[in-house]
């Protein structure tokens, strides 16, 4: 009995430590099912969430600060150190740039309340999603360029990792045209390969 108890608790602590807590999302979506069972790469992937014609963007943690620095430079908006910290800890977001400061000042619970975020503008007149994706890709690339110069990775690895992967997480009921617009935005910046996040479908479909 004692041995069994020991093993059980050893395994329990292992699973508790390896488990990653589910991050709260500003927009929960119901993804369509598919039989393809490829897993999404664990790191180096930014996610664009689409639901109710609203778009949310999740940047990998390592590239978050770099992305906001680049956006701040390009758009001429300055952020305080506290706001950078808040942005780094924020999982996904979906607000126009002029509301970002007020979003960062709120607590995570308020931020992720339904309806608190209205989505990133992505229409042709005010296309902020393009800027975010572009800056996130540049920030991601800059990290690996730094590592390449320091000799931590070789050129082959750099080629594999330097381009930020993009995953589209769309709601099953979303209009095709909304998703098509996102695909067009990605293609405009020569991002022709990406992932569609799907759910599991049983085999006899």
């Amino acid at each position, binding site marked *: *009995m*004692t041995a*069994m*108890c020991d093993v*059980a*608790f050893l*395994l*329990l602590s292992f*699973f*508790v430590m*390896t*488990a*990653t807590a*589910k991050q709260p999302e500003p927009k929960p979506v119901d*993804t*369509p*099912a*598919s*039989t*393809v*069972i*490829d*897993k*999404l790469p*664990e790191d180096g992937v930014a996610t664009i969430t*689409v639901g109710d014609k609203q778009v949310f963007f999740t940047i990998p943690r390592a590239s978050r600060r770099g992305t906001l620095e680049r956006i701040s430079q390009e758009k001429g908006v300055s952020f305080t150190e506290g706001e950078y910290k808040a942005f780094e800890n924020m999982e996904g977001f979906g607000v126009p740039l002029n509301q970002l400061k007020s979003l960062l000042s709120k607590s995570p619970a308020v931020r992720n309340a339904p309806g608190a975020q209205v989505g990133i503008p992505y229409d042709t007149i005010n296309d902020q999603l393009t800027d975010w994706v572009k800056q996130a890709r540049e920030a991601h690339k800059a990290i690996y360029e730094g590592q390449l110069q320091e000799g931590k990775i070789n050129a082959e690895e750099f080629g594999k990792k330097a381009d930020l992967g993009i*995953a589209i*997480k*769309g*709601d*099953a*009921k*979303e*209009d*095709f*045209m*909304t*998703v*098509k617009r996102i*695909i067009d935005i990605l*293609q*405009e910046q*020569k991002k*022709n*390969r*990406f*992932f*569609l*996040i*799907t*759910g*599991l*479908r049983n085999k006899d*479909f």
Partner: protein
Amino acid sequence: MAELNTGGGGGDGKKVRSKKSNPGVDLTAMVDLAFLLITFFMLTTTLSKPQSMPLAMPDKEKTDTDPDMKVPEDRMMTILIGKDNKILWYMGMLATPRMEPTEAKFGKDGIRKDILKNTAYAKQHTEKADEGLIVNIKASDAASYKNLVDILDEMAINKVQLYAIGDITPEEITLLTDKGLY
């Protein structure tokens, strides 16, 4: 196993002598709980990894397309997605189709049979063993994102090697409207 014996009780004036006992605690409930939690964490960690479907789109700015390049009409299938989860497909060019536009549903008994049939048809019309069906997927404004994923899933199920997502033309929208699918 496992009971905590406390000595004494039946002393009766004699010298109180503590009985030699086996100090053990009942672990059954604790182990039960531990295994329950293990099961929970095991299942949640493996199931929470999101699944994904890789999608490669053709480069938009490619300008080296040869206008004289012959389209293999016998191997080209176009799938149009209309409203209410309905599909219209045809083989060849729209003006001179090899197979007339046909309506189909999603699923095992609908579009999948047609794709398999057309794959066989395409194989008959080519000498090369590695050449098969080419599918052009065109979704209309009335289609939903689920429709797109479903049709991409059919491509994966039927192992169609060449497929692309294209823009729908006004003629094809007219065709869908005529059939009452737009």
